[in-house]
């Protein structure tokens, strides 16, 4: 009886905790305790759902008991559960960091907004309804607007205004695309839409394709695919440290939406949707990957470096998706948590530099004499550059092995070039920061501020230590995603 309602808890629990947190008012210690307890509960819940999803069947929660395709459907498959667990791991550490670094003191309602953002993220990963996806996108965005300008300051308000405007324009396009699809198919449920798109008459194809591409523009904007990624670096650099670390998952929401919609609704089963992205998306993604590496190389601060790597990781993920072989998709899904966690570590380290060094996180401004920070940076750099034994290395190897035989050799060359460039960028940043004569004032760390970043590093390392069970899960996940019939079956 209870387990039947387990599926809606990832959405309900954060909403409840946000309300509870609000009731606690000014009692910050209690709020932090609640954050820790609630975060732990969320992690346990996500892990439970992961084991549940791994039994293979797609679990469905019918809100209000409506018979699908009517009403809104929450659905749990391996991909949803995977994203829930990743969100929980990241958010728990970020919340802990916000508490130990006192970031949550610098403005009102940090924890409340954080819970609401978590709710939006979980909802977006669970929903099986395209319009509901829009609603959860808006929820997580509204919370992110508040978090972005947390602590005030001119740079943050400027960045906030741009970020909000951009996303509002994106939302307008999202609504146009979704309503166009509704007008064409008469449904909003993704699985039902998949069925109707597959049955669509050829006369409808141009319309369906325009709607699909409009929707792609929206998701590409959220995912920061070139040429829609000029906003990423500035926004993330202006955000408070822990918020920037949490935002590491925001671009992945866009990637998730692309994977979800273009495997299910416009998947291989539909003539209208097939071949829509494959001719050009690999090139665009590779361009994004290369651009990200170049941005990292040109960075003047650690935040800038992280921003470049965020862009690069999106390029890598979408390349793996666009290649469209099961092995490449599995490798992509294996790479996704790795890149998210590693970039988050870099943002947390950048924040430490900003809080404790007079020159902030600027790269060429004298050395930093802190062994722990240097070690963490080294580990994060190994992870981000994709050196063995990190999961980044395994994922890239797996992905390149999964390329189809007729793939252009240039693809391989570009992936390797981008990896080399980001390795140079990271090595250069590391030596500029830690292999210089220490200069300027250096404030002692507050106790425990490096623990969350260390935990994130350990999690990213665990991805390669437990590579066998995790990669076989990723393989099952990719297989499930490509068998769209199972999703349609659930409707009956």
């Amino acid at each position, binding site marked *: 009886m209870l387990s039947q309602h387990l599926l809606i808890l990832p959405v309900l629990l954060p909403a409840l905790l946000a309300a509870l947190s609000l009731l606690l008012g000014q009692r910050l210690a209690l709020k932090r305790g609640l954050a820790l307890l609630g975060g732990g509960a969320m992690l346990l819940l996500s892990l439970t759902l992961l084991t549940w999803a791994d039994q293979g069947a797609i679990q469905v929660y019918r809100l209000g008991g409506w018979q699908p395709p009517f009403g809104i459907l929450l659905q749990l498959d391996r991909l949803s559960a995977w994203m829930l667990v990743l969100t929980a791991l990241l958010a728990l550490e970020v919340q802990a960091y916000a508490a130990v670094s006192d970031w949550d003191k610098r403005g009102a309602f940090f924890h409340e907004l954080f819970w609401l953002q978590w709710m939006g993220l979980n909802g977006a990963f669970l929903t099986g309804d395209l*319009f509901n996806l829009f*609603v959860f996108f*808006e929820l997580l965005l*509204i919370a992110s*607007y508040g978090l972005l*300008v947390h602590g*005030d300051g*001119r*740079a943050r*308000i*400027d*960045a*906030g*205004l*741009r970020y*909000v*405007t951009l996303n*509002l*324009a994106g*939302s*307008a396009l999202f*609504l*146009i695309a979704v*309503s*166009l699809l*509704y*007008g064409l198919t008469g449904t*909003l449920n993704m699985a039902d839409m998949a069925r109707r798109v597959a049955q669509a008459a050829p006369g409808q194809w141009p319309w369906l394709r325009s709607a699909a591409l409009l929707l792609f523009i929206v998701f590409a904007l959220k995912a920061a695919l070139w040429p829609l990624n000029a906003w990423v*670096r*500035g926004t993330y*650099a*202006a955000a408070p440290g822990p918020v920037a670390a949490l935002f590491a998952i925001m671009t992945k929401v866009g990637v998730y939406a692309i994977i979800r919609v273009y495997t299910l609704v416009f998947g291989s089963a539909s003539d209208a949707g097939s071949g829509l992205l494959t001719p050009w998306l690999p090139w665009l993604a590779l361009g994004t990957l290369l651009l990200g590496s170049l*941005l990292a190389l040109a*960075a*003047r*601060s650690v*935040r*800038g470096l992280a*921003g470049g790597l965020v862009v690069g990781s999106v390029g890598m993920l979408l390349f793996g998706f666009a290649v469209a072989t099961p092995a490449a998709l599995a490798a992509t899904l294996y790479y996704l948590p790795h890149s998210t966690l590693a970039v988050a570590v870099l943002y947390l380290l950048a924040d430490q530099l900003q809080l404790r060094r007079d020159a902030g996180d*600027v790269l060429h401004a004298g050395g930093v004499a802190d062994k722990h920070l240097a070690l963490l940076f080294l580990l994060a750099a190994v992870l981000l550059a994709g050196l063995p034994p990190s999961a980044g290395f395994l994922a890239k190897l797996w992905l390149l092995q999964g390329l189809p035989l007729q793939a252009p050799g240039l693809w391989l060359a570009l992936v390797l070039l981008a990896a080399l460039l980001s390795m140079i960028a990271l090595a250069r940043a590391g030596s500029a920061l830690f292999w210089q004569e220490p200069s300027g004032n250096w404030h002692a760390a507050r106790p425990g501020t490096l623990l969350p970043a260390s935990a994130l590093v350990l999690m990213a390392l665990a991805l390669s230590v437990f590579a066998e069970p995790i990669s076989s899960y990723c393989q099952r996940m990719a297989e499930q995603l490509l068998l769209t019939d199972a999703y349609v079956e659930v409707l009956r």
Partner: protein
Amino acid sequence: MSALLFSLIVGLLAACGLYLVLRRHSFDLVLGMTLLSYAVNLFIFAMGGLKIGATPIIHAAGSDYADPLPPALVLTAIVIGLAMTALLLALAIRQRQQQGDDRIDRDEDASC
């Protein structure tokens, strides 16, 4: 005929909205976003089919009914749009306080 008129209005609203969004003052930006969201809401409404005098339920008498779902979607979009406009205004006001004017085309170097 009514469909043509309707689509012209949606197009006009969207064009005006887009023009205002691309201007360099945050006041114009807010107005533009509002017009754009009106255009989008009308577009959603039209996607259920434009019917005059039809009831929004399926009845035994015939198949001439108006689709009740798009108005529900529009309602959701209106509520979200209202909150977003309020937030955008709050940010614009805060920026005007800090900056002294409402220009949004200054390229501040964020030192990335």
